[in-house]
């Protein structure tokens, strides 16, 4: 009985421990040479530049939809002039970072999981290690760094695309000039809104890359395992993004108490 309970506990917590060690290694290893700048740039191209159409289009659509919803609510109180400021606050503080992270988790997380998974089942990783190449550093650290760097940049793009979408919706609805719209957008936005919310997405980027790399790096079961690693990468990284966001927002509120007005 005791043996069975002990085995169950080990089965439950062993993967968590293995993942924690993997994440700790991914956090520390990039600071040690060689820095693999070329690989990081290649991944930045894949994760960053190639995600811009997805992020910009989604941001634009989210801005339009948010603007329409906000207008419908604020119109009842005669507060249409608050739409740009409300939309900017919502996008910069939370909607932009979280949506960008979830989109990147879907696109990049699945890609990393599948790519590393395929390398594992085709023994490419074993071949790298057999050639005295630090496979973890070459494959995982570079992806983690690139993803953590790309996320804040993609978030800024998402914020601006969302505000542009909001402006387009507002211009159609009320004919507001772009100058007045952007002037009003930043009425209530402060550095305390922009900086922590943008920088926290580096944590999201780290989580996406670490989760996907961990699952890809430990793939078993052939091509079926590759698909499974890809799917689980998206699901697990999305859950971790949302859970970590709760903690990060709480920390931001602690360091930057919110001011109304």
């Amino acid at each position, binding site marked *: 009985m005791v043996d069975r309970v002990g085995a169950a506990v080990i089965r439950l917590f062993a993967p968590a421990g293995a993942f924690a060690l993997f994440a700790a290694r991914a956090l520390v290893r990039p600071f040690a040479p060689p820095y693999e700048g*070329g*690989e990081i*740039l*290649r991944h*930045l*191209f894949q994760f*960053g*530049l190639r995600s*811009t159409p997805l992020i910009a289009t989604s941001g634009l659509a989210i801005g339009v939809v948010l603007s329409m919803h906000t207008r419908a609510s*604020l119109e009842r*109180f*005669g*507060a*249409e*002039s*608050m739409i740009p*400021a*409300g939309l900017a606050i919502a996008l*910069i503080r939370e909607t932009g970072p979280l949506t960008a992270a979830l989109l990147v988790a879907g696109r990049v997380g699945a890609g990393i999981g599948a790519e590393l998974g395929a390398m594992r089942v085709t023994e490419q990783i074993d071949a790298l290690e057999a050639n005295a190449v630090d496979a973890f550093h070459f494959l995982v650290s570079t992806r983690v760094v690139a993803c953590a760097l790309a996320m804040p*940049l*993609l978030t*800024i*793009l998402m*914020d*601006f695309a969302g505000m542009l979408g909001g402006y387009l919706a507002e211009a159609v609805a*009320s*004919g*507001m*000039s772009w*100058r*007045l719209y*952007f*002037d009003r*957008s*930043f*009425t*209530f*936005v*402060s*550095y305390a809104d*922009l900086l922590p919310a*943008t920088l926290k997405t580096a944590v999201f980027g780290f989580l996406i890359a670490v989760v996907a790399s961990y699952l890809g790096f430990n793939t078993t079961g052939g091509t079926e395992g590759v698909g499974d690693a890809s799917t689980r990468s998206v699901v697990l990284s999305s859950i971790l993004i949302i859970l970590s966001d709760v903690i990060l927002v709480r920390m931001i509120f602690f360091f930057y108490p919110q*001011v*109304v*007005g």
Partner: protein
Amino acid sequence: MRTSPARLAGVGLFVIGTIVLFGIAVFLIGDRQMAFTKRFDIYTEFAKVTGLQAGAIVRVSGARAGEVIEITPPAEPAGKFRVRLRVSQELHQLVRSDSVASIETEGLVGGSYLAIAAGSAGAAEAPPLSTIAGKEPFELGDLLQQMNATVTKVNATIDQVSGQLEQTITAVNQTVVNANDLITGVADDVKKMAASGARVSSDIASLSTSVREGRGTVGRLFTDDTLYSHISGIAANAEAVTSDARAVVAQAREAISGVKNAQGPMVGLADNLRQTLEDARDAMSGFAENMDALRHNFLLRGFFNARGYFDLAQISPAEYRAGALMQRGRTVTRVWLESTRVFDPGSPDESPRLTMDGRRRLDAALAPYLDRIADGVLVVEGFEPGGSRDQQFVISRARAVAARDYLVSRFHLDNRSTGVMPLGAGPADGAPAEPWNGIALAFFLER
């Protein structure tokens, strides 16, 4: 794997592009928070702060001017919160020693900001770290409470007045009934007196005839007891009737006096009515103040704006330039008037005087729009390209105010839809010369 130059360029473009966007956001936020302008600190005090927090916006005459730095609670219950503000130096000339600060509502969930009204021209500029007066904040709850109290008071007064009115009508009715009874009683006596008088006249006539005809003696007349008794009775009756009539008159006078005197129901009624009117006037005065405050309230400002009750003083030059009045299908037409053709060159820049020719030019500029101006908005824009930014602001505002005051006085224009906008050195889009030195009448008219 080697990274190709095209990919490197793509990554570079991506990184630099997003960093530029980030820089724009940082600059816009810094600009809105006036991080790049010179500022000075000043204090104000309030008994209650109504949600005002450190970091809240400060506006001077509607223009964004700075932020609340800290709020120090009072040391005792009777004390006041001391609020420290950081205000842009550019607007220091508007913050005078008699300026008044008030807490207003703005923002999605009723966020508060602090408004400073420009002081009078005669007062000195408020020195840094001095304290300006604070006007206690208005709250929607206070208004509702006041309205409730007013309605209750009016109801009570109406109940009281209606009770006293009822009493008065009853008293008047009773007086009329008494008077009627008395007059009815007197009528019989008056008839008897008239009949007796007629008989006396007849007797005297008969006596005179008998005397004239020589029948009986005069002594018999004086010794005849029946005749004497008859005459005495008539006299007594006449006296009683007179006395009754006097009593009726006295009673009627007393009744009327009772109605009219200081404790009577009529005066009480008049007093109540006067008190009611005074109370109603007080209530309406308070109500008008609160309605004015309500117009600035975030929740209801849109309602008033939609009906034309917008406050031109609340629009900053930046918002105005960005087209704050260009919504709701308005078009704008400007008439440009050069400073030297409108103002007396000998008058001080900060208090310009209109010349006779200048007044005629203003009349002529406004004349074509007089039949449409009631439905639109007139903004007198002031321009002054020379000097520092604060001088430009002060002079352009003084010019606009001088022209606006003249037009409002001359044509009895509505102050709420006739505003001024100090635009300093411009830009003056569409002006005959750029930069423009003078004023422009901007007519915002419905299409």
